[in-house]
């Protein structure tokens, strides 16, 4: 993601208009960061593990979504890159006749469900065995998993660039006066709000939501109260998978203009770490605040801080600004802005 693509068409605007337009772009980027960060936080809260495989899940979601939307069945290196050469069997050909908006929405749903199931599968087969083992080991396992998932995706879908068609192409913009805002950005913000609201309702009012909060608070006590912690872990992984897929669905159209390759999607998840950390690893609200503020800070720094650093011959400052912000916050508040300070006992 280059600085230029973040700053599309802002040169001719007045200062206030620039601030508004860039803030909306930042909020959209931040909304995606928030979705990814929520995925980290949900797993961290219930299992105390940082899931480095989240990038892999997001990648899986994005590629599944591409396959579903374009009607392309992955077939190794020769997998076609767009829907022009869909390789669906004849009895499924009606799928491509569905209007793109509905096809996209359905595909997001199916991809999210599949990745959610895959998350449960990982938890059941691998991480389940590691309950009670050092956290260090579990975290490294997720790191190993990330390698396996990402490489497998590369093998299944091939290295060729894919084109994800979406109902909101980069050319469709909402114009308010001179300000132009891409519809993709607006939808990304809407999706984030819906997802976040859904999670808050789930955690506050449903039986399993309460069970998850109890488990996060005290695992042993909740087990003694009859809560099945294994189910809670599985739900956490399912949610993480769903969130990763949804984040992928909006990351590709807003940030990559619909062109999917392996590396940028995979590392988008890593770029969301500062968001999760800034808000505090165990705070759902913190993830949202952290995500939004990192997104806005990144876009605004690309506009106003990059030129200063460019004069020092240090271009692309906005790429590292979130990390610098994260380190700064951590040195002042070691558990993030809204994280629970850990009570340490001997």
């Amino acid at each position, binding site marked *: 993601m280059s600085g230029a693509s973040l700053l599309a068409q802002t040169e001719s605007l007045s200062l206030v208009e620039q601030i508004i337009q860039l803030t909306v772009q930042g909020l959209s980027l931040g909304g995606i960061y928030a979705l990814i960060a929520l995925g980290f936080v949900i797993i961290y809260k219930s299992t105390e593990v940082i899931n480095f495989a989240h990038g892999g899940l997001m990648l899986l979601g994005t590629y599944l979504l591409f396959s579903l939307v374009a009607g392309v069945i992955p077939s190794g290196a020769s997998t076609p890159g767009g829907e022009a050469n869909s390789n669906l069997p004849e009895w499924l050909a009606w799928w491509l006749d569905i209007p793109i908006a509905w096809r996209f929405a359905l595909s997001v749903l199916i991809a999210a469900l599949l990745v959610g199931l895959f998350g449960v599968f990982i938890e059941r087969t691998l991480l389940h065995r590691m309950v009670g083992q050092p956290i260090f080991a579990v975290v490294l396992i997720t790191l190993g998993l990330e390698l*396996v998932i990402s*490489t497998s995706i590369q093998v299944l879908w091939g290295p060729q660039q894919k084109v994800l068609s979406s109902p909101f192409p980069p050319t469709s913009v909402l114009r308010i006066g001179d300000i132009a805002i891409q519809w993709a950005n607006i939808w990304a913000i809407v999706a984030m709000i819906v997802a976040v609201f859904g999670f808050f309702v789930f955690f506050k009012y449903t039986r399993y939501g309460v069970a998850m909060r109890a488990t996060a608070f005290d695992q042993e006590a909740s087990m003694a109260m009859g809560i099945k912690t294994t189910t809670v872990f599985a739900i956490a992984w399912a949610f993480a998978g769903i969130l990763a897929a949804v984040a992928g669905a909006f990351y590709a159209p807003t940030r990559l203009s619909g062109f999917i390759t392996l590396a940028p999607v995979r590392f988008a998840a890593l770029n969301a770490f500062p968001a999760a950390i800034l808000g505090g690893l165990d705070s759902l609200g913190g993830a949202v605040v952290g995500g939004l503020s990192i997104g806005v800070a990144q876009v605004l720094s690309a506009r106003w801080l990059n030129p200063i650093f460019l004069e020092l011959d240090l271009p692309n400052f906005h790429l*590292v600004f979130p990390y610098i912000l994260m380190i700064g916050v951590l040195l002042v508040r070691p558990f993030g802005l809204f994280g629970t300070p850990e009570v340490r006992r001997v």
Partner: protein
Amino acid sequence: MPDRHLRTSYKEDMALLPNRVNRFWLTVLLVALVAYPFFARTLPATDFWIVLAVLVLIGATGGLGLNLLSGFAGQISLGHAFFLGVGAFVGATVATPATTTLSGVSFWGLGWPWWAGALMGGLVAAVLGVLVAPAAVRLRGLYLSLVTLALVFLGEWLFTAPALEPITGAVRGRPSRPISMGLPLLDDGALSNNESLYFASLMVAVVAFVIGKNIARSRVGRAFQATRDRDIAAEVIGVNVTWAKLTAFGLSSFMAGAAGYLLGVFQSNPLGANFGGAPGLLISVEYIAVIVIGGIGTVLGSALGAIFVVALPELVSYLTQQGWLPFVAATGSGSFDEAAFSTILFGFFIVVFLIFEPLGLFGIWLRLRKYWKGWPFSY
């Protein structure tokens, strides 16, 4: 350690090489390591075998650094690639004379001998490592691993920035002078560049392992382990935890820096983009694979892990050429090629070792030794 023979005095317990058997095998190992390149000269693919050994030695040195930090002191670091990169560029600047390339970039350079490059690369990396350490003092566990992850991205930014072009060569990389050594005892008296690099790496690795082993058996190592296991309890019994973390970071980055210099010489034109961002993270993960597969918190394990991690891709490539892996395509075809298969195997082995053998290859070695000691009885 689950198994070791009876020791009758404290002095014996603390000794670097407690008995004659240890001393004998260590001597054999050192002689074999020195003789290795001359033995490789008799093989058909001389350079291949020497390069393989160089990579193992570099991996073992860097892996030992990470093992001291993560395995002994319990500070998870994903930023190892950053320190390797610092070592590569600082070392190259110190050990290469100032040059101007065809494209008009003038590189700084001191032209000092190679060992000064390794030393300075290590020292500058160590200073930077100590600068990171305050974060480690404030933060614990997983939060720290994410700060060190930030180092990889900061590294990418700095290594490719035009401001540092005289040192790093920005996007095009900088030259790192090959090491050349003479061998007065032999008739032809000269070593090839690869052979010189082998001996340089061997010397650095031997120094690193002597340091590592001494730390592991002494007060410093015990302070590291106490910090790892129960940091508050350690503080209560008088371990200076802050100091332990600073030392661990310093030592670890020193070894990474020295190893990085050698890696830079091996690459002959180290490229900043390879030490940061996505490729850098992959390097960090490879070093984590070295210590996890070799054995977390063991000195010998770093070497075993390095052998495994360096040998695995070569083994995959060999087996593919022999036609034993029909589902793997040739390199560069973009589909399921050797590199992809090796990466999957790395991930797979990290997962498998952590679940089934947390002590890694070192643990397997311990069990084998125990089995044969009591053979044919079970204990």
